[in-house]
């Protein structure tokens, strides 16, 4: 992760009620065993930036896997990012490729300015979502 300082700060902005395991099958967190981890029990999330350091203005890809309970994948994962200090987000909407239950690849994220970015992962259960977030300092 050259050029990036990771400042993990899992932030919860919504309450996820207990989730039925019937809504999704399996959980692919083990697929990202080598990635970074976030947790807000019962949710666990792993992510990995594909291809190395994030550079200003260059598109990049993130693989994300999440469990919303033991062996249970979320209904949906959504990703976005913003610069809290600047009051704006990304100019591009990343596209999602599902790799399996609770396991997605998001392509085309672009941090168009240097500084601190907050990536948010929205994890959707049956009828609610929970947000986990991580901040990245991108300097080059």
């Amino acid at each position, binding site marked *: 992760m050259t050029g990036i300082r990771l400042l993990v700060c899992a932030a919860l902005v919504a309450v996820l009620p207990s989730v039925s395991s019937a809504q999704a099958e399996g959980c692919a967190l083990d697929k990202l065993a080598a990635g970074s981890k976030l947790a807000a029990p019962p949710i666990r999330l792993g992510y990995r930036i594909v291809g190395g350091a994030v550079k*200003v*203005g260059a*598109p990049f890809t993130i693989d994300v896997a999440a469990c919303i309970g033991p062996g249970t994948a979320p209904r949906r994962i959504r990703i976005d990012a913003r610069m809290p*200090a*600047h*009051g*704006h*987000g*990304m*100019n*591009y*909407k*990343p*596209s999602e490729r599902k790799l399996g239950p609770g396991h997605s690849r998001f*392509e*085309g994220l*672009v941090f*168009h*300015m*240097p*500084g601190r970015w907050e990536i948010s992962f929205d994890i959707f259960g049956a009828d609610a979502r929970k947000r986990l977030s991580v901040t990245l300092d991108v*300097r*080059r």
Partner: protein
Amino acid sequence: MKSRAASWLWILGLVLGVAHAGAESPVRFSDTEKQTILLHGPWPVATKPDPSNRVSGAPAAIAFGRALFNSSILAKDRDRSCAACHVAAKGFGDGRPRSIGIARVDRNAPGLYNLRLNRWFGWGGKSDTLWSQSIHPILDAKELGATPALIARRIAGNDRLAAAYRRTFGHEPAGKPPETVLVNVAKALAAFQETIVSGRTPFDTFRDALAKSRAAGIAAYPAAAKRGLKIFIGKGKCNICHFGPNFTNGEFHNIGIGYFVARGRVDKGRYGGIEALKASRYNLLGPYNDDTRRSTAGFTRRVRQHPANWGAFRVPSLRNLVATAPYMHDGSKPTLREAVRHYSELNEDRLHQTGEKLLRALRLSRREIADLIAFLNTLSETPRRK
């Protein structure tokens, strides 16, 4: 004798002391500042041909594009050329606040240096390639006012240009759909414009000296420019948007310049640019992209429109900006001093509510303004001796 020598020494010491007191302390950069400065180079940067344009970099296309750029054949009334508003001696701008083609347009003619490094083209970014951008002034009723049929007919009917077309694209222009000829003309124009690259500047010499810790090269860079550079990457935070070797992040920001172009009429800026981009059949997702893999189309596919795009305009490169006055998308700042003063005295109330929070009035002193201008001047090539 001894006391006389002591007197001389005392006087000499006084003179040196006064001289020292008047001298300015040398400008030094912290390691963090050095790292930030190094991000603005090296220059020039390596480039590759545009995969969406099959004649990008081809000598025949460059020659054809140069001829077209300087020819009035693209204008409806044969009375102007691209070069009328993109004058080489004026940084490929025209020196006017807002350009005049067939009629007065709403924006300043941007300089054409280093366009091949752009992701978006035009002040609102309505084009995703240099060739599709080149189509707009040809067809715009306020600029050259032509039509695809007119362009196709004139190219086919001009022996010299028809031959250049054939050398470039391998077929005759006659008999081809007019839109095909128009797009090919634009691709040749783009091939030529890709060759308009600014040279190395005093800043580049300083930056490279800094990278290699060459004391003489660092010392040769003027102190005022160094102080201005400190403001640029520090208090001013100019480098956040004017990022990288080309001094632009290539995106769009609302910096509080008015966008009413006439009574009851606004320039939508990036908001309108995205609308036009999505509607265009000449974009990278359309049929004229020569790259079947659409390898550079990701930005076009994923760009999203925000309310904050209103009043946002493309961040221009600062290279060779000395030649491209007046400044801003509407040419409303006649000099570099006025452009710098805009940021110094920024009216934060005029910024869009969802605008760039980073921007704050810098409240620069007169000396700081002079220093910042001294730095900006070093981003332009030193005029070549004839």
